C-alpha cells in the first residue's frame, strides 16, 4: 500500500526543544560580538566582511569585546561538511577579495567549454543549442570543500574565532530577541548518559546571530518554526551524490546530462540530472542530483549514480581512473516562493542555503551564499552602530539584489517537472527564455514527504559493486572520511515502526546506509516494519529531514571529512 512519510512525523518539536532562554550565569557564558553558525561560504564571507568593516569602525569593534566575530562550525575544519558541484560564479569572490587575483582563488579552472547531453541507456545526444541555463562560460570549477578551507584561513587571518568541531545545538532567545546559541555537549553515551570525559556545551551570547548553516540547517529549522517564518510554498529538496575521480586523461569541458538513468514516466517523478566537471589535469568529479519528490521507495540516488557510471559515455571519461572521494548533500530547490517570509528577526539573520538561496535551473548557490553573508555583515554593522538589533535592512537588501532577482526569474521552474521530464523540460526552457513571465502565477507545491511512496522497481536495475567503478554504500561512507564514534547518542529522529514503503524509502534514499530493515522482516508480508538505524554512518546530507524525519547535529567533529567534494 502506498504511504506518505509525512504521515509518520518524527518525535520532535523544534521550536520548544531547540530554542531556549540563555541559562548560564554571566560568568560562565561566552560573550562574543557576532555569532555565526556555520563555516561555509555564507558564514565565512559574513565573518570576513565583518572584520573588514570593523577595521573602519574602531568604536564598534571595541564595543564588541575580545571576540568580535566567532564562527561555530560542526565539522573538523571549515569545509569538512561542504559538498557541491561546483561551478562558481566569480562575482562574490571579486567583491570580498578585491585585491586577490583569480589565480590565487581556490579554483581548478575557468570554464571555457560546456555541453549538455541527453542520455539514453546506451547513447548520449548533445543538446544543440544548449539550454541557456546550463551555460557556464566565465565561471570557475571549484571544490567547495577546498573553498571552505580557504575562506576559513582568510577568516582566521582577519582575526575571526573559527570554532570547529562545535555544533550549535540551541538558539538562545529571550523576549523574542535572539541572544546567541548554545553549543552541543560532548562525551555523551548511547543513551545520552554522561561519559567520564563529558564536557557540557556553552552559551555563546552575541549581539547579533547569523544562521549560515547550509541546507537543512538545524537552528534555521527551529527559528522558522519558532518565529513562524515559513515561506509561501514549502521548501523542497534534491539529493546530490558526488564522487571525485583521479583519471588518466584530462576532461576538456563541463558536462551536464539529463535523462537516463532517471526514468521519464511522470508517475515516478524522477527529476534531476548529472554533472561531470574537470578538476585540473588529473581529476574529475561526477554527481547525480535528484528531486526528493520521487515516488519509488526503492529509488536510491547513490545507486543510480553507480548505474550512471556504467554508461559507455561516462565510462569513457572515468576509464582507468580511481575513485578518491565520495559524499552527498541535499540542495534546497523550492526557489523564490519557498524563501522564509523574512530573513531577519530581532537579533538574527538567515543566509545562504539554509534560507534556500539556490537557483536550481542554473545549479548555482555558492555566490548567493557569499553575497548574502556580506549583505548580512553590512546590515549588522549598520544596526549595531545604532545599538539596534533590527536587521531588516538585510532582508530588503537580499530581495533587491542579484539573489532576489535571479530567484524571482526562475520562481516556477521546479514545479512543472513533477509532470514528467519532457513536459517539464519544455516548460522550463520557455520560462528561461521568457525570464519567468511564462507561465506566470504561483504554482502549487507540497512538501517532499507528502509524496506517497510505493515499491516500483528502480532497485532491480542497480549494478552490483565491482569496487572499481561501482561501489556499495558502506565503502563509500568510508571514502567520505567519516569516522564517527559509535557509542554517541542517536542524532536522527524518526519513527521506527512504519509501513514497509516508508521504511524502504528511507533505506534506499540514505546514501550512507543508516537505515536497515531487519533481515527477518525483509521477506515477511507484514505491512509495517521496525527499522534499525546506525547513526554513526550518517554523513549529514539532510535527506531524512526532507523526507519525513529530522536530523539534529551530532557531537561536534563527527561526520565526514570531505577533502575535495
Amino acid at each position, binding site marked *: 500500500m502506498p504511504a506518505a512519510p509525512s504521515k509518520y512525523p518524527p518525535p520532535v518539536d523544534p521550536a520548544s526543544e531547540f530554542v531556549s532562554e540563555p541559562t548560564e550565569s554571566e560568568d560562565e557564558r561566552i560573550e562574543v560580538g557576532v555569532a555565526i553558525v556555520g563555516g561555509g561560504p555564507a558564514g565565512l564571507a559574513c565573518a570576513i566582511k565583518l572584520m573588514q568593516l570593523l577595521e573602519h569602525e574602531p568604536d564598534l569593534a571595541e564595543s564588541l569585546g575580545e571576540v568580535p566575530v566567532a564562527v561555530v562550525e560542526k565539522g573538523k575544519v571549515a569545509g569538512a561538511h561542504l559538498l557541491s558541484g561546483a561551478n562558481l560564479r566569480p562575482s562574490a569572490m571579486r567583491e570580498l577579495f578585491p585585491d586577490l587575483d583569480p589565480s590565487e582563488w581556490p579554483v581548478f579552472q575557468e570554464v571555457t567549454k560546456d555541453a549538455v547531453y541527453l542520455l539514453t541507456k546506451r547513447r548520449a545526444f548533445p543538446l544543440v543549442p544548449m539550454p541557456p541555463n546550463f551555460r557556464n562560460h566565465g565561471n570557475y570549477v571549484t571544490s567547495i570543500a577546498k573553498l571552505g578551507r580557504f575562506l576559513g584561513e582568510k577568516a582566521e587571518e582577519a582575526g575571526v574565532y573559527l570554532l570547529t568541531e562545535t555544533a550549535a545545538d540551541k538558539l538562545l532567545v529571550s523576549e523574542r530577541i535572539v541572544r546567541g546559541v548554545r553549543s552541543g555537549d560532548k562525551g555523551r553515551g548511547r543513551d545520552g548518559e554522561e561519559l567520564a570525559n563529558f564536557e557540557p556545551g556553552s552559551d555563546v551570547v552575541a549581539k547579533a546571530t547569523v544562521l549560515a548553516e547550509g541546507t537543512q540547517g538545524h537552528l534555521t529549522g527551529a527559528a522558522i518554526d519558532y518565529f513562524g517564518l515559513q515561506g509561501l510554498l514549502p521548501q523542497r529538496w534534491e539529493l546530490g551524490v558526488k564522487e571525485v575521480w583521479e583519471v588518466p586523461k584530462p576532461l576538456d569541458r563541463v558536462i551536464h546530462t539529463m535523462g537516463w538513468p532517471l526514468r521519464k514516466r511522470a508517475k515516478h517523478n524522477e527529476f534531476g540530472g548529472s554533472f561531470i566537471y574537470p578538476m585540473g589535469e588529473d581529476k574529475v568529479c561526477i554527481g547525480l542530483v535528484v528531486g526528493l519528490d520521487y515516488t519509488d521507495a526503492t529509488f536510491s540516488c547513490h545507486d543510480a549514480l553507480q548505474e550512471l557510471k556504467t554508461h559507455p559515455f561516462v565510462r569513457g571519461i572515468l576509464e582507468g581512473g580511481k575513485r578518491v572521494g565520495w559524499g552527498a548533500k541535499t540542495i534546497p530547490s523550492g526557489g523564490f516562493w519557498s524563501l522564509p517570509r523574512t530573513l531577519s528577526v530581532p537579533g538574527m539573520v538567515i543566509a545562504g542555503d539554509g534560507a534556500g538561496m539556490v537557483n536550481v535551473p542554473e545549479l548555482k548557490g555558492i555566490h548567493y551564499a557569499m553575497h548574502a553573508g556580506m549583505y548580512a555583515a553590512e546590515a549588522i554593522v549598520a544596526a549595531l552602530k545604532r545599538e539596534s538589533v533590527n536587521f531588516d535592512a538585510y532582508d530588503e537588501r537580499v530581495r533587491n539584489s542579484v539573489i532576489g532577482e535571479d530567484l524571482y526569474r526562475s520562481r516556477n521552474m521546479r514545479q512543472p517537472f513533477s509532470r514528467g521530464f519532457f513536459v517539464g523540460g519544455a516548460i522550463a526552457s520557455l520560462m528561461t527564455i521568457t525570464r519567468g513571465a511564462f507561465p506566470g502565477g504561483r504554482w502549487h507545491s507540497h512538501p517532499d514527504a507528502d509524496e506517497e511512496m510505493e515499491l516500483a522497481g528502480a532497485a532491480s536495475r542497480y549494478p*552490483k559493486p565491482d*569496487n572499481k567503478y561501482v561501489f556499495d554504500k*558502506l*565503502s563509500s*561512507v*568510508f571514502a567520505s572520511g567519516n*569516522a*564517527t*564514534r*559509535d*557509542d554517541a547518542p542517536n542524532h536522527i529522529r524518526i519513527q521506527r515502526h512504519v509501513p514497509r514503503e516508508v521504511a524502504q524509502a528511507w533505506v534506499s534514499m540514505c546514501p550512507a546506509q543508516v537505515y536497515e530493515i531487519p*533481515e527477518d522482516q525483509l521477506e515477511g508480508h507484514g505491512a509495517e516494519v521496525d527499522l*534499525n538505524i*546506525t547513526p*554513526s554512518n550518517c554523513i549529514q546530507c539532510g535527506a531524512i529531514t526532507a523526507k519525513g524525519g529530522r536530523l539534529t547535529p551530532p557531537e561536534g567533529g563527527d561526520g565526514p571529512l570531505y577533502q575535495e567534494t
Partner: protein
Amino acid sequence: MAGILVYALHDDEGNFNKNSLGAVSEAARLAEELGAEAAVAVAGDVADEACAGLGAYGASKVFRAKAAPEGLAQPLVDVMANVIQDEGFSYALFGGGLLGFEIGAGLTARLNAGVTMEVTEVKVSDGKLVAVRPVLQDSAVVDVGYVGEPGIIIGRLNAFDATERDGGSAEVVDVEVELSDWSTRAKMVTRGEQRGADVNIEDAEILVGGGRGLGEAENFKLAETLAEALGGAVAATRAVVDAGWYPYAAQIGQTGKTVAPKLYLAAGISGAIQHKVGMQNSENILAINKDPNAPIFEFCDLGVVGDLHKIIPKLTEAVKAKKGG
C-alpha cells in the same frame, strides 16, 4: 668486521624469548651473507649452558652482562653500546617486542645511529643491510638503508622465525659494564604479572570474530567455544556491537580496535571496509559465510561458503579432538 649484535630477552627462569631466537637466526643468516659473525648480548646471570645453546641458532659469541638487570631497557643500552664499540659491530638487531624497541631507541641516541623499526625483512645489498618496513598501516613498504655505522634494526613481532642450524655452541664472554647513573633509576617492582581476566584482543594470537551472520546474540556462544578450543579470544563487528550482542571492548575496525593476530577466523562477517581496516593485517584469515558474494571472500586466505551454524560446532569438536590427541 660487519658483525651483527642481537639482544636476547629471557624470562626469570632463563628461557629465551622466541622473537629473540628468531632474531638470532636472522642475524646468523645475514652474517653468513656478509661474511661476518652474529653475536648475542644477554643480561643477568643466565646459565653458561643456556648461553652456549644460542649457538644452535647460529650465534658465535654470547656477551653476558651478569650485573645488568633483565627486563628494563636502559642497562642493556649501556651493555650493548659498550660491546658494539669495543668489538666493532656494524648492526644491532632486535626481535619484535617492547624491550627491543626501547633498547634500540636508546642505542640510537647513544651512538647517533640510524634506526628502523617494525621491520619485516632484512636484505643484504652491496655488503650492507637494508631493512624492509611496512608503513602507513601497511599500505606501502619502504627499504631503509643506513648512513654510517652502526645501524639498528628492530623487528616486528613474529617477523623472524627461530630456526636451529647445525652451529655448535656459542662462546660465552662475560662483560663488565659500568651502568649509567640514569640506567639505575628505574627499578622493577614486579615482572610478568598475569592478569588473565581481561583478555586484551589486541594481544591475542588467535581471534574468532563474530558478525551479523551469527544470527542472534546467543549464538556468540558458538564463537566463544570455538575460540576456547583454539586458545584464542572473541572479537566482533560494529554491527553486532551496535545490536547489543557483544561488548564494545571487542569491536574490531575503523572505530574499534586494530588487530593483527596469527589467525582471524571471521564467522558470519561480510567484510565491509570499516571492519577490514581493523583486521586486514592478520597473518591468516579464515572466513565462514553463507553469502558467496561477501567482500570478505576477496581478502581471506581460506573462505568457506556455508552455514556457520552447521560448521562451527563440528569444527570446534574437531579442533578439540586434534589438540587433545
